[in-house]
């Protein structure tokens, strides 16, 4: 359990990148980008975790109870919003690209090169 969550993080990152690189469909590629980003959530919450501690809410528990790190949770929330925003924008691009190119294969979405 010492490093296992972090190994999973590296695995998710690598798998997501593999998906982006081998993708033949833009929507598939965007989903793979979501997977890449999900590795950062697991990493963030993983580094802020403390064994046996409670969630950082002190409504009905005493203020001195050991709690996990609230900061990484705030960062992860920001991260989720960024994910939603970037994905929405990319999907709009994809819809337009499909209209203009008639395909969503990144290899054929080539207007410019060189």
């Amino acid at each position, binding site marked *: 359990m010492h490093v296992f969550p972090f190994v999973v993080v*590296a695995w998710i990152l690598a798998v997501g990148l593999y998906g982006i690189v081998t993708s033949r469909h833009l929507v598939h590629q965007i989903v793979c980008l979501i997977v890449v980003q999900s590795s950062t959530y697991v990493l963030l919450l993983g580094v802020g975790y403390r064994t046996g501690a409670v969630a950082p809410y002190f409504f009905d528990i005493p203020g001195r109870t050991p709690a996990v790190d609230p900061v990484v949770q705030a960062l992860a929330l*920001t991260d*989720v919003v960024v994910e939603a*925003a970037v994905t929405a924008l990319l999907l709009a691009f994809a819809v*337009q690209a499909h209209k203009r190119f008639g395909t969503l294969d990144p290899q054929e979405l080539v207007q410019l090169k060189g």
Partner: protein
Amino acid sequence: MTPALRRWIFLAGAAGLVAFYLWGLVGLPGFGDYPGPYGDIINRIAVGQTNATGVVSAVNFEYRGIDTVGEEFILFVAAAGVSVVLRHLRSEREREALDEAREAPPTSDAVRYVALILTGPIVVFGWWLASHAQTSPSGGFQGGVVLTTAFVLIYLAGQFLAFQRISPTDLTEAVEAVGAGGFAAVGVGAVALGLAYLTNFLPLGSTPGGVFSSGTIALISFFVGIEVAAAFVLIVGELVEQTLLVREGTK
């Protein structure tokens, strides 16, 4: 580059990247041993300083409030970008097609009733989340997204026309801008009083955890809630409109 060649180059690179990444990750203190001090300090002082018992909201809206301002504007930009990119699709002819498409909602009755029944509770739930940022695991963002879901249910329940009635685009845009701008403006309130930007200048309330406790945190959470709900409604609305357009085109 052929796909096969690309895959091999990638696999070589990824093997190196993962090895390198793991070399760094094994240097972490180990899972479950968060070393502090940032989070521990916040956990110790937050309830006393802000009267918010939900410390994550206190971090989001107060200690690291400027981050959240940036974050809300990222969403704001995304909604604007989606509008820019998709609105160019609509020529006049397509607009007419769209008006016709609105007449024919392809939803089954069962789905409609279920959706209609769910809408009320979801609005209430979303509102509760957005207004309890300071006490419990919730906040403007989650509340806003839940509110969006309510709009989508209305869409399922009725028809696209109703969706348009609930959220005429201009109004939604204005609400979104007011949400994002309102958050930024709450911060300016502190500047006007000679305090640092985003300083919590409202009374904190007498008991930690009350709905109106924690001063600006509750206010900011409210603005975030409407900003998020409006932004997602805009994004979903644009995509729904696109889908309807083509549906009409294939008939």
